[in-house]
């Protein structure tokens, strides 16, 4: 189990995160949802070790994971604002990742449909295919926790179904996912649990049933719960 405990982060006078706490159980898919500027990306940066919190800590199976070296062994992170080497070909990037990690997953390349564009320069890829390449990087390892910041941006509805299926499949294989998702409709299709963040604070956390019960809105969609929770 991954425990995020009392994480706070300030940028000068701006409070980005204020005592954020929640837990992610092993083998689950946790969706971090919230309005723009709520602090979702900062939180994912801190969970993955790319920023240091001012206060609080991360625990994995009750053991503190404070050093970047330790987090790196455990977590694979795909930041939202990542532009993969524009002058590389898809094949060159895939080769580099495979050679450097020593991990090869032909099935992953097939599922992401990257083989047919292997000689294309990354700068010439559509947004959807660039996003697939980012997912290829995040999933090309044996790490237990996968943290993805806005993984569904740029996909058309058909592509999205493929990607959701891929994540579900990897989840079935035992990987834990933490996803920051902007579109609640997409989040509802895949996440087991949700943590709603607003203005750097956790508003609520739990499964959709728990949230419905908590806000007294039986059969409501995630979007309706979200609006109710923020009100």
């Amino acid at each position: 189990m991954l425990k995020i405990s009392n994480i706070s982060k300030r940028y000068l006078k701006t409070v980005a995160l204020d005592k954020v706490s929640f837990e992610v159980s092993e083998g689950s898919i946790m969706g971090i949802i919230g309005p723009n500027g709520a602090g979702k990306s900062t939180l994912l940066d801190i969970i993955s070790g790319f920023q240091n919190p001012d206060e609080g800590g991360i625990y994995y199976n009750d053991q503190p994971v404070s050093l970047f070296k330790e987090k790196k062994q455990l977590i694979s992170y795909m930041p939202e604002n990542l532009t993969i080497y524009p002058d590389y070909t898809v094949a060159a990037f895939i080769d580099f990742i495979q050679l450097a990690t020593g991990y090869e997953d032909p099935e992953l390349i097939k599922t992401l449909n990257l083989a047919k564009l292997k000689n294309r320069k990354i700068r010439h890829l559509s947004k959807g295919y660039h996003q697939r390449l980012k997912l290829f990087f995040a999933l090309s390892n044996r790490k237990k926790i996968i943290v993805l910041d806005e993984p569904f941006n740029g996909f058309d509805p058909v592509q999205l179904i493929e990607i959701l299926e891929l994540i579900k499949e990897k989840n079935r294989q035992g990987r834990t996912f933490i996803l920051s998702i902007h579109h609640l409709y997409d989040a509802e299709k895949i996440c087991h649990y949700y943590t709603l963040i607003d203005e750097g604070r956790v508003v609520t956390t739990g499964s959709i049933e728990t949230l419905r019960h908590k806000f007294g809105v039986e059969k409501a969609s995630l979007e309706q719960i979200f609006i109710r929770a923020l009100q």
Partner: protein
Amino acid sequence: MSRLSILLVKEIRDIFFTKTGLLFLMLVSFITGYSFLTAVELYSEQSLSAVNNPLYARGFEPVPGVFVPTYGGLFVLFSLFLPFVIIPLLSLEKQNGTLAVLIQLPYSFKDILIAKISAAFFFLLMTILLTLPCFILWQLYGGHIPFNELFVLISGYLLYGLFVVSVSFFAAALFESTANASIFSILLIVLSWVIDFGKNMDVSTFLTSLSEWTVTRNLKYFEQGILSFTASMYFVLLCSFFFILAYILLRFDLRIKSKLKRLFATVVLFLLALFISFQSSLNTDMTESHRHLFSPAVTKALQEIPDLEIDVYMKKSDSRFRDYQNKFLNKLLLVLNDIKIRMMTGRELNKNYGLFIYRINGKQGKTYSNSEKEIFPIIFKLAGVSVGQDNGQQVFPGYPLVIKKEQLTIIQSVFYLVIPLTLISIFVFKNFKLIRRDNND
């Protein structure tokens, strides 16, 4: 293939196969060709009156006459353009977020930086390699190449290039944007020129004493054919300093306090190491003509002198002192590196302005002259040492070389056509292969 070499291959490719890298190498070819052509023309013209005059011919040395001016072009390119090639190597990784990709692979911050520095060093070697045709052509023209002196010159430029690389990485680690990093690194590099300019203009005594520590001042040793331990250590320390700063700044996993502590410790250690290395002045004259040494008999006699102390009642910015330093003191320091030199200040200075006092074994001699002809008799008399005869020594013949104008067109062909076209062909060939494959998809 080890994991680190996989990263190194990636970095080499990132620097060599970019348009910026290609343009820089082409610029190196054009500028080197132009500088070499101008230097050879001048050397050849001046040699006309020396080929039949052995005494005049002694002043003709290929390294200061041809190769130092040729490398002068490289100096400007390194200082003003190299940062534009080096900085993107790191700053684009930061801007595009791919540093997050690299650091999540089995590479540490140290591995990433080492791979980038190594790739930049290979790029430097490539620029030096592009100057190789100068030496080949010079030999084909029948010119003489003093290898030791040339080795010192090339080493100096490699060290200077590495300094520019280190400053570029530091700037790239410090700033988020490539443009800011480029301007900052050029500012740092040009600072050395400003201090030298200030020294020459005699702006302030502070600038004059600071000029001893500048990069350009230390590069001068290598240009003069002096293998200087102090200057080499200076470059090594300076490069290490900026590389370590870049490493610390790059580590986003460190908290601000920890970063500041490490930065402070690095600055203190660097200044300490620099101060220690400046205490020694181990220099060797590598020139064939031994132009930085006194005659063998004088050198032998000087080596017998125990402890020499010199009190200088003159400002460092005084042109007479500069003359004294260039023509006498620097040569003396090549023979005796434990001389104690005191630059007098205050009322004492004004009272005895222009005086030099030499002390050996408690005895002292005074003179207002800065010429070795006046100084040596005083020193040797104080030390009780006599100067022997310079017998059987080989006189440096000098190497004047007259080259016909028509022969010089080959320089233009090599540097303005052959090298640039080869570089473009390699670049186009590589990209053409990609475009063809892409169209086949």
